């Protein structure tokens, strides 16, 4: 990992206005391609701060999308570890303002790819260490000592005899005039006080007491409310706008939007009620009758059966050996579209004025939101300011800019500041869905066991929407083309993109949400054919992979895989993704013709755990999210529109049904891996493999709730 040098440009030192103290500003880039962004550090105009007050309070202000991953606390921990701040007195704050476009060269920012902590580990620690050295220098000057005679601890400066000389706050002002050191010393891991501990999130109380401000909670003076109603079928058109507009009485007004109509007025509830009752008439979407669930599924299955076309990955002689195999198995898997369904539906607040625009958004990508609004309204991005609020769930949905663009258009047209909230029905029916995907997998067997593995998957591209020129969308391939098993020597993998006319997007864990299910279930089918234990077989084909072996062996131990009286009810899945190695076991019972998941065990090697409490929560929550989708998740299409609307038709896991999730971390010391998306893709295959083991029935089409078990 690169060693970041903290330079003057990165650490902007200034006095705190209104309070004696020091404010140390630094950029916290929130970019998908963070390494590139850091190279162009003048582009980083997003400001985060360490504020040290004269009364020794320390406030860490972080600009980042907080959507449940506890990022404010984790990032503050990294800053405070080497700073030697007294943690109980540290407060964290989600700063509202992001103005990336004040610098025209600034790239778009985003919180995605389980990247927040791992991309900032070294850098934030270095910033904390620089600030510590600044404070020590300032103390040394005031006591006429050399810095090496002093050390920092618990927000105080001590001399070598162990005597307290001053607090951070007392020398903070003097540090204003000093130069930040170039290469601050970072402490060794054995001296960590925060990193690796169980640290409670600093923002929990404001969340549970309802004081945290989410996107839907934003209140502005003179604000009006907006609701939208999208044209139901994708690509359909409204044919009677002027007629229905005439039915809307003041003070409510309706406006046309791309693929939707919107209403603005003094009450959200009233506006939504008026909008829903309008007798809108729509033209059919082009070839609407061709877009039926069964037909769309058939198109994907046809695509995966077509073996023509080039291989994306080819290793050894898979085709030749498959032909020579004495026995073969072939399976076709299919996963449905999935909605994100964050509990806070899509929403945004916009105040569009002649010369400036302010946006308040629960967003994973403030830069992208500013860019999208600038384009839609024909404005200079430098005049647009995004204020990031807490997110009531994101899961990949809130990186999209559809709602914020609508809010801005409605604000411009109505001349008011407007808070737009989508109804649950709009949120479900006009999502960008996890793409429906199919896969066909084949394995050949001979004297030496597994002879060859071939596979093809097919579905719509997520990236083509923003990048029409892309050749192959890598998000569809993640976890499908590259298997972690070096022991599979003859492998051939193909992919075919099929546009099915349904908008698709990033859903927690993206391509792995389907591909890990395809490959890990098929691996259990292979193990069963060979009469092998699924865990032992994975150990055999992992090859030289000590971290992977350790994850599987640890999982075998914690789940009692080899000796549990329940072992016939256990199913397994393994993956290497988001920089982490992880595996899960699900313990499943089949009762009253239904599946009940009794317990989930997850083992994760993410290199080093920063916040054990938060890390465990991410793995637990990701597993429950994956289980809810595996059991119930589906969005189906009829006449080019989504059939589900509110939670009644698309159920989610509830509290009594949620199994215990036991999480074990392995601190291997390897490079930091991500956590937020790691466990989600493991759950469908682990549960299906457990069902397969006890019923000999492999679930090859999700969700599981569609099956009745004998």
């Amino acid at each position, binding site marked *: 990992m690169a060693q970041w040098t903290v330079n003057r440009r990165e650490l902007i030192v200034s006095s705190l206005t209104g309070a004696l103290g020091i404010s140390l500003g630094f950029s916290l880039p929130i970019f998908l391609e963070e390494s590139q962004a850091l190279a162009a550090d003048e582009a980083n105009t997003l400001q985060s701060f360490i504020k040290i007050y004269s009364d020794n309070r320390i406030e860490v202000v972080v600009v980042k999308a907080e959507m449940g991953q506890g990022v404010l606390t984790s990032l503050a921990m990294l800053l405070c570890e080497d700073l030697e701040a007294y943690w109980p007195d540290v407060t964290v704050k989600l700063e509202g303002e992001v103005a990336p476009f004040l610098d025209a060269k600034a790239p778009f920012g985003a919180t995605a790819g389980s990247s927040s902590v791992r991309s900032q580990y070294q850098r934030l620690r270095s910033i904390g260490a620089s600030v510590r050295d600044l404070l020590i220098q300032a103390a040394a000057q005031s006591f006429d000592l050399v810095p090496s005679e002093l050390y920092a601890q618990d927000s105080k400066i001590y001399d070598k005899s162990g005597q307290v000389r001053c607090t951070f706050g007392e020398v903070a002002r003097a540090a204003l005039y000093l130069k930040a050191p170039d290469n601050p010393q970072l402490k060794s891991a054995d001296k960590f006080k925060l990193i690796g501990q169980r640290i*409670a999130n600093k923002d929990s109380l404001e969340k549970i007491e309802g*004081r945290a401000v989410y996107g839907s909670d934003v*209140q502005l003076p003179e604000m009006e409310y907006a609701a939208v109603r999208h044209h139901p079928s994708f690509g359909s058109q409204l044919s009677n706008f002027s007629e229905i507009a005439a039915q809307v009485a003041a003070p409510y007004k309706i406006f046309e939007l791309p693929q939707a109509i919107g209403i603005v007025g003094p009450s959200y509830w*009233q506006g939504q009620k008026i909008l829903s009752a309008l007798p809108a008439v729509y033209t059919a979407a082009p070839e609407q009758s061709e877009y039926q669930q069964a037909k769309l599924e058939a198109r994907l299955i046809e695509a995966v059966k077509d073996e023509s076309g080039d291989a994306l990955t080819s290793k050894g002689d898979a085709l030749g050996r498959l032909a020579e195999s004495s026995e073969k198995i072939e399976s076709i898997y299919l996963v449905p579209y999935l909605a994100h369904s964050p509990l*806070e539906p899509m929403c945004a607040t916009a105040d569009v004025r002649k010369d400036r625009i302010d946006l308040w958004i629960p967003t994973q990508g403030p830069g992208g939101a500013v860019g999208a609004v600038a384009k839609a309204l024909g404005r200079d991005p430098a005049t647009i300011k995004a204020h990031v609020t807490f997110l009531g769930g994101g899961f990949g949905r809130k990186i999209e800019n559809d709602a914020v663009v609508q809010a801005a258009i409605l604000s411009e047209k109505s001349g008011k500041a407007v808070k737009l909230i989508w109804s649950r029905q709009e949120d479900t029916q006009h999502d960008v869905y996890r793409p429906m995907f199919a896969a066909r997998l084949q394995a050949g067997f001979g004297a030496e066991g597994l002879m060859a593995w071939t596979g093809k998957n097919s579905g719509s591209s997520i990236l083509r929407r923003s990048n029409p020129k892309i050749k192959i969308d890598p998000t569809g391939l993640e976890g499908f083309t590259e298997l972690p098993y070096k022991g599979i020597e003859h492998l051939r993998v193909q992919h075919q993109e099929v546009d099915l006319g349904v908008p698709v997007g990033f859903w927690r864990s993206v391509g792995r949400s389907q591909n890990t299910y395809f490959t890990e279930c098929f691996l259990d089918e292979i193990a069963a054919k060979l009469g092998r234990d699924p865990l032992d077989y994975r150990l055999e084909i992992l090859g030289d992979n000590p971290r992977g072996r350790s994850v599987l062996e640890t999982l075998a131990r914690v789940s009692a895989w080899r000796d549990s009286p329940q072992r016939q009810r256990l199913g397994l899945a393994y993956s290497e993704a988001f920089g982490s190695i992880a595996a899960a076991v699900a313990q499943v019972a089949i009762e009253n013709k239904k599946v009940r998941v009794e317990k989930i065990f997850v083992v994760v090697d993410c290199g080093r755990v920063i916040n054990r409490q938060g890390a465990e929560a991410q793995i637990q929550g990701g597993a429950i999210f994956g289980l809810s989708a595996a059991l119930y998740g589906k969005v189906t299409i009829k006449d080019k529109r989504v059939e589900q609307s509110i939670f009644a038709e698309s159920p989610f896991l509830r509290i009594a049904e949620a199994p215990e999730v036991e999480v074990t971390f392995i601190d291997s010391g390897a490079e930091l891996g991500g956590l937020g998306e790691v466990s989600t893709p493991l759950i469908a295959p682990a549960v299906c493999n457990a069902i397969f083991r006890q019923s000999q029935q492999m679930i090859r089409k999700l969700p599981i709730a569609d099956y009745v078990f004998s």
Partner: protein
Amino acid sequence: MSIDLKVDQQNVSVDVDAAKPLLWVLREDLGMQQTKFGCGAGLCGACTVYVGDRTVRSCTFPISRVGTAEVRTVAGIKDPLSQALKEAWLKHDVAQCGYCQPALLVSAHQLLSKHIGKPEAELEISFKEISNICRCGTYVRVRAAMLDVLRSSLAETR
């Protein structure tokens, strides 16, 4: 119509449509944002509040039905049980995105108030009465926190 209400120990008066759901009276007319909108159909529980001694889904509960009963949001339940719940929530670090949590605390408060002093096993069976949806998947810790509160209340009564 003009309606007098008692919300979180305060007497207030609003002039709204009798059919307007309590949720939107709280959020729009009273500016109280701690009770959240999730589905508008009484299914997800993000809008759960007390009306008198029972909890309701305020997104489908017309304001005219409140009558003289006091409305209590998460900010208005101030008793030893709610304090114990908050402490347990913090100890287990339950909240993730946090959006469902204020209403989940109201639901947990209502369920636990019926179970204080009773065996743990009975509470575990009753968890199915809490149908609040949490998309972040905090369920495991919600149960642990609630069981903690029940256990400490049992210890105190002994």
